[in-house]
């Protein structure tokens, strides 16, 4: 049940999964004609590491009481979550084609009633960490060993509720709660530091009573070791994952225009071709 320590950093397999997820994201959003590629692409390695190395989950028992919980607080990265759930086996890959279409279980933002593996419906920003606090308290009451992982956007951390939740998590000494912030430094209106500065960001989490780690959110060699300290923490853990918005597609990277815009067919083709090249290199 416990994750194994990997001393040799050979993450070829994880990289291959991440690339498949990236391809899915581009295909899904292109097909839907709308969606959020930038913030979906920036959290692919984080999701891949969580689902394929960290989370204690079995797609055959999605209701297992002691399963680890994952909350996508930045609900607009739904395509990344759906693609990951498909790779992991929670949902059929066929579903991905229906993203954002009328009658589809894959709503624009995740709906827990429609998609197995989605633990809470999100979309309105700033709420996932509070829900995570509730789930972590639930484990304490029931004396269960599961952990709760909440993925937040950095722009999302401008919501006051995130800090209400951060305060509560430290107050209740929730050492079974892990927040991961996808620190891609871009939000809809531009650079986070120009729209509403978050820095000193790590220090904020520290000041709220959390243990903090700052990592490269695209490097499995940093992501996985960060999760390996979870059994030893005595307070909630915030992992600030520095990422690149639009990661993996050259013309989307660090370009705020791709926050919430679907690629045209020729753009999608170009993006997919780039990923093909990466695969060849790997």
């Amino acid at each position, binding site marked *: 049940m416990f994750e194994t320590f990997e001393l040799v950093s050979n993450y070829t397999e994880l990289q291959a999964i991440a690339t498949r997820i990236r391809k899915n994201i581009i295909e899904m959003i292109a097909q839907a004609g709308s969606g959020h590629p930038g913030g979906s692409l920036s959290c692919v390695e984080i999701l891949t590491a969580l689902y394929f190395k960290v989370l204690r989950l079995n797609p055959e028992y999605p209701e297992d009481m002691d399963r680890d919980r994952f909350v996508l607080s930045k609900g607009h990265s739904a395509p990344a979550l759906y693609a990951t759930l498909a790779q992991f086996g929670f949902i059929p890959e066929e579903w991905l084609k229906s993203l954002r279409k009328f009658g589809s279980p894959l709503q624009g933002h995740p709906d827990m009633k429609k998609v197995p593996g989605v633990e809470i419906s*999100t979309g309105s920003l700033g709420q996932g960490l509070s829900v995570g606090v*509730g789930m972590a308290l*639930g484990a304490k*009451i029931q004396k269960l060993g599961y952990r*709760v992982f909440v993925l937040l956007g950095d722009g999302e951390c401008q919501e006051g*509720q995130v800090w209400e939740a951060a305060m509560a998590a430290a107050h209740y000494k929730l050492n079974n709660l892990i927040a991961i912030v996808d620190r891609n430094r871009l939000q809809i209106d531009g650079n986070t530091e120009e729209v509403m500065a978050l820095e000193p960001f790590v220090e904020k989490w520290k000041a709220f009573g959390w243990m903090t780690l700052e990592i490269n959110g695209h490097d499995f060699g940093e992501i996985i070791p960060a999760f390996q300290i979870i059994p030893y923490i005595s307070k909630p853990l915030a992992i600030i994952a520095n990422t690149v918005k639009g990661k993996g597609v050259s013309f989307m990277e660090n370009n705020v225009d791709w926050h919430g815009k679907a690629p045209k067919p020729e753009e999608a083709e170009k993006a997919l071709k780039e990923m093909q090249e990466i695969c060849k290199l790997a």
Partner: protein
Amino acid sequence: MQKHLATRQAYGEALVELGRNNPNIVVLDADLSKSTYTVKFAKEFPDRFFNAGVAEANMIGIAAGLATCGFIVFASTFAIFATQRALNQIFQSIAYPELNVKIAASHAGITVGEDGASHQSVDDISIMRTIPGMTVIVPADVTEAYQATIAVARYFGPVYLRLSRAPTPQILPNEYMFKIGKAYVLKEGSDVTIIACGTMVYSAMVAAEKLSSHGINAEVINMSTIKPIDKETLLNSVKKTGCVVTAEEHSIIGGLGSAVSEVLSEEYPCPVKKIGIKDQFGQSGKPEELLKYYGLTSDDIVEATLSLKEVPNK
């Protein structure tokens, strides 16, 4: 149960009873546990009570998280803060996922009194009623508040339970059995249907007595579940009386009067007079002073009825 207690006190007692019988009951509050009476549960079950501090939005999110783990969660604060500070959280994290959370909000209406408009919730029924799938309940007295608290714990899904600060006279008979979605005919009559909820139910009964001296035989209905509304009881009564007066300690926009009018306009159009707060904010004062100022007394119900029946007020 003693008479002349506030519905919030009955809520506090019922929570303790629930806690003793069901280990899955969890209670949250936002630094108002002494006012909402969740403090009694907190003392007896410290492991199942969580104070969110002055942070209503976070409290609602925590409630959602606990509900996903199979707990029956009661989240309490003042009505104005529950429904206004945490509205989007209730919508997104509780109602949309249909989670088993009971938002039990006290200090509703203007009988909060001296604290004034900032603490007087006059639109909470309206707000909560428009959220898809939300059940809205306004108990009339402690008997009903106690029973309703037990009943909502047995019902699966989001509920808004509206409670009062001020004591209310005992109005429901001893044999009364609360059922979600079931209105109760307190007094049968044939000339007018007076439909009330919460603190106004007692005033409606007093008004009915006063009306009898005008030769008007009023039927009085306690509509404690505002959503889903009991159409059957409502229509059966109105088909008999042909006109309606509604009474609520709430804005006339969107509350009980609106809910009743929505049913009647589609199914049995008839004259309706609404007693309630007329698009105004509250203010400081004693509950009785405020009820009089905002036109929420038994005399106001009498006057509205007489105008409806076109009988000169003697």
